[in-house]
């Protein structure tokens, strides 16, 4: 029987990678991702996980080593955060363009300067357009489950794309939660083996990551776009199958008291759990508020987002990153463009908050919603408001 144990989320994540029986792990340690790779290094060193652990000299090398490993058909895992993710930036595009099924945990961390090791989504937003499938997670069980799903999605023949699992630095990565680790045999059945169709092999030479002159580059990019969009079907199918096997269910967009709510708040990641408590409290006070949590970030779930907000009058979007000099939070901009052409759509208010590890409490979420309603009625001079900044 699968046991439910109190475990640090980072350690549980490492255990999930072990359950997935990864073949190659190439990673460079960086706060707040460190406990994940430390745990994996230990599992490999102790012979508990039969994998090649490559201790590289930088994140750029980590992702480069992952390219090679995945190209040879190995089940490949890495993890990074903040500046580390930025350092591997250019290689991220190569991984998705070459259609290599790498799984990476990104322990979301604010970007420098000033130096911050604490969490927000500025690292995630900077890699938005790298062509990876991207999932946001809310709690430890979710993280473990998404790691397993990520391998299955990435390696599916119809997908063959790298997958990023975002989890909030410290707020999620370093907490101890009760987590159920599935049985090894169940995981093996759920995942199968990685069968990369055109691996590097001396018996059948192939060339990967070639030169793409103007006559063909556009076609390669369109092929990539079609593929990433179509991967949504496989993501949905995977979550359905996961639900059947492990009895835990996931959706691209998840609601909480959202069906009949006139006012909706939209969040991503672990802050959603605090937001739920705030919604619950406001509901008890008779307010028709609800929450929408965006789990699938890429490919963007257009139809699910449209469906989720169609009855609301006001939608308040909380971003944990700033698009400097731009229209507000990056998530909010996308939600706006997804809804702009809809005949019936809510008013949209953009908030930025929770930067660089600053907490948003239950009271904080109530204040955001209350202020959001006020802006919805009276309007605002600003493109967005930043929550909790000291004037």
């Amino acid at each position, binding site marked *: 029987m699968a046991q439910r144990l109190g475990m640090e989320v980072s350690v549980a994540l490492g255990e999930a990678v072990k359950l997935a029986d990864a073949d190659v792990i190439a990673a460079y340690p960086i706060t707040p991702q460190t406990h994940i790779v430390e745990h994996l290094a230990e599992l490999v060193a102790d012979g508990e996980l039969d994998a090649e652990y490559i201790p590289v000299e930088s994140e750029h090398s980590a992702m480069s080593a992952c390219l090679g490993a995945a190209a040879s058909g190995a089940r490949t895992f890495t993890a990074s955060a903040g500046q580390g993710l930025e350092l591997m930036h250019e290689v991220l595009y190569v991984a998705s363009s070459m259609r*290599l099924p790498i799984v990476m945990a990104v322990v979301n961390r604010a970007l420098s300067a000033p130096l911050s090791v604490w969490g927000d989504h500025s690292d995630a937003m900077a890699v938005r357009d790298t062509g990876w499938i991207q999932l946001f997670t809310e709690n430890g069980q979710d993280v473990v489950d998404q790691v397993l799903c990520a391998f299955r999605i990435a390696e599916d023949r119809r997908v*063959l794309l790298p997958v990023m699992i975002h989890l909030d630095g410290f707020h999620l990565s370093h907490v101890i939660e009760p987590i159920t680790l599935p049985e090894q045999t169940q995981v093996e059945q759920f995942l199968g083996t990685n069968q990369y169709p055109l691996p590097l092999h001396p018996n059948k*030479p192939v060339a*990967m990551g070639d*030169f793409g002159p103007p*006559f063909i580059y556009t076609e390669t990019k369109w092929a990539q776009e079609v593929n990433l969009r179509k991967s949504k079907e496989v993501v949905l199918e995977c979550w359905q199958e996961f639900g059947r096997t492990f009895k835990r269910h996931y959706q691209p967009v998840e609601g909480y008291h959202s069906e009949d709510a006139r006012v909706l708040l939209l969040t991503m990641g672990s802050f959603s759990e605090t937001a739920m408590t705030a919604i619950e409290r406001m509901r008890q006070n008779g307010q028709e508020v609800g929450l929408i949590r965006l789990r699938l970030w890429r490919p963007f779930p257009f139809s699910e987002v449209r469906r989720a907000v169609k009855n609301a009058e006001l939608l308040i979007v909380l971003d944990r990153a700033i698009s400097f000099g731009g229209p507000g939070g990056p998530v909010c901009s996308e939600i706006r463009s997804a809804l702009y052409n809809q005949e019936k759509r809510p008013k949209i208010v953009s908030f930025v908050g929770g930067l660089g590890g600053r907490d948003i409490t239950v009271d904080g979420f109530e204040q955001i919603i209350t202020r959001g309603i006020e802006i919805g009625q009276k309007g605002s001079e600003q493109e967005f408001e930043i929550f909790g900044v000291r004037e």
Partner: protein
Amino acid sequence: MAKPESELTWRDLEIGSIVTEPGNASQYRTGDWRSQRPSHDFAKCIKCGLCYIFCPEGCLSQTAEGYFEADLFYCKGCGICAQECPTGAIAMQQEEE
């Protein structure tokens, strides 16, 4: 490549644009990058082979008589062979078009 370049669609590409036909880069004409072509004066050539060694394109080959000639399908006209030739046997000439 089965189809001519101009007819290839995105559907014809392998996953990740992987090239499965080994050596098909040899079908790629790099010669049209050239604005100058090397011209060999065999009277000055001592058959030392330095041009052959230095050519970054690997497009020089030795004739039966032992002289070196560039394959203009590939020669990019970089002029390295002319620069390296110890006897001045190679001159770079402007391409007409």
